[in-house]
């Protein structure tokens, strides 16, 4: 059963089309049904943000202060960097120039982060 276009894969193509139709047909029918029998009725309450029945205050899209980015930087420096440094040190003699430079750029970026965090006083406890 070899078709000129799909070769031996014709049954799979047929099945794929049937599967897609099976998924799309109910959605399309529901869409058509809603067009015909279910008039859209938007309104101020219905379109507002759901707040358990209370009146919606302000907007949900507010600037959110990422106060914890310093912790993320510290985490990258002392955790992720350490994980990468160990295999780097083990394979150091066998590395190409390009790989070494890439790793150095990575270390430089993290070192900049360390300087930034140090300036912000994150590393002082007492």
């Amino acid at each position, binding site marked *: 059963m070899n078709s000129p276009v799909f070769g031996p894969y014709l049954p799979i193509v047929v099945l794929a089309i049937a599967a897609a139709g099976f998924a799309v047909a109910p959605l399309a029918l529901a869409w058509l049904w809603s067009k015909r029998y279910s*008039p859209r009725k938007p309104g101020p309450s219905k379109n507002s943000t759901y707040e358990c029945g209370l009146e919606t205050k302000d907007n949900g899209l507010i600037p959110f202060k990422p106060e914890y980015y310093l912790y993320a930087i510290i985490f990258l420096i002392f955790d992720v960097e350490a994980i990468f440094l160990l295999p780097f040190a083990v394979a150091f003699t066998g590395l190409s120039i390009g790989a070494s430079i890439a790793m150095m750029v990575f270390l430089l970026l993290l070192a900049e982060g360390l300087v930034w965090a140090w300036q912000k006083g994150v590393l002082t406890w007492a």
Partner: protein
Amino acid sequence: MDQKLKIELSKQGIVTTTLEELYNWGRKNSVWPMTFGLACCAIEMIATTMARYDLARFGAEVFRPSPRQADLMIVSGTVTKKMAPQVVRLYNQMAEPKYVIAMGACAISGGPFKQGYNVLKGIDRYIPVDVHIPGCPPRPEALIDAFMTLQKKIDEQALTGANRPRHLHADTPSEFVVPRFGAHDLEPPNNPNVWRILNNEPCGAGEADAGED
């Protein structure tokens, strides 16, 4: 389709149906209530959903915690005036078609707290109620009976024609006016388009009041 012909065909073992019947059959057996309890009646409502009374037999066990996904609001308990705007707003936020069961003496009339200054004397002052259940609180059987009454009502709703229900008319709003806290009472004290006491007009027309919120 002619009813006699249909009966005759069914005697011969041929089942016939209409799109409307199929649609309503599906609708009435998958009414999802909103997770929403106000007072003691809510405990009976919870009992109704549990294994002993098992509301799941009627396809209504899926209590949805969002009005966006719910078809049925069971007003189960005392509606205080503080709570009334929230109840109406939640009703407004439900998608059409939506139904309301007022469960218990408080929800239908204020009940034992009718004389209280802070209790709404029936939620049907603001939203169209489909089924009222008396009782303080009504037993789970009463809620199941109300549910079956609602199913019967859904089953009889026409899909086309002038008698089709409110939600199928494109020009009737699906939102009702949300009361505000006035100096002495809720303002307005009732929604005259919804609350009709002495005549038998069908509720739920809500002609001129798009919900202002």
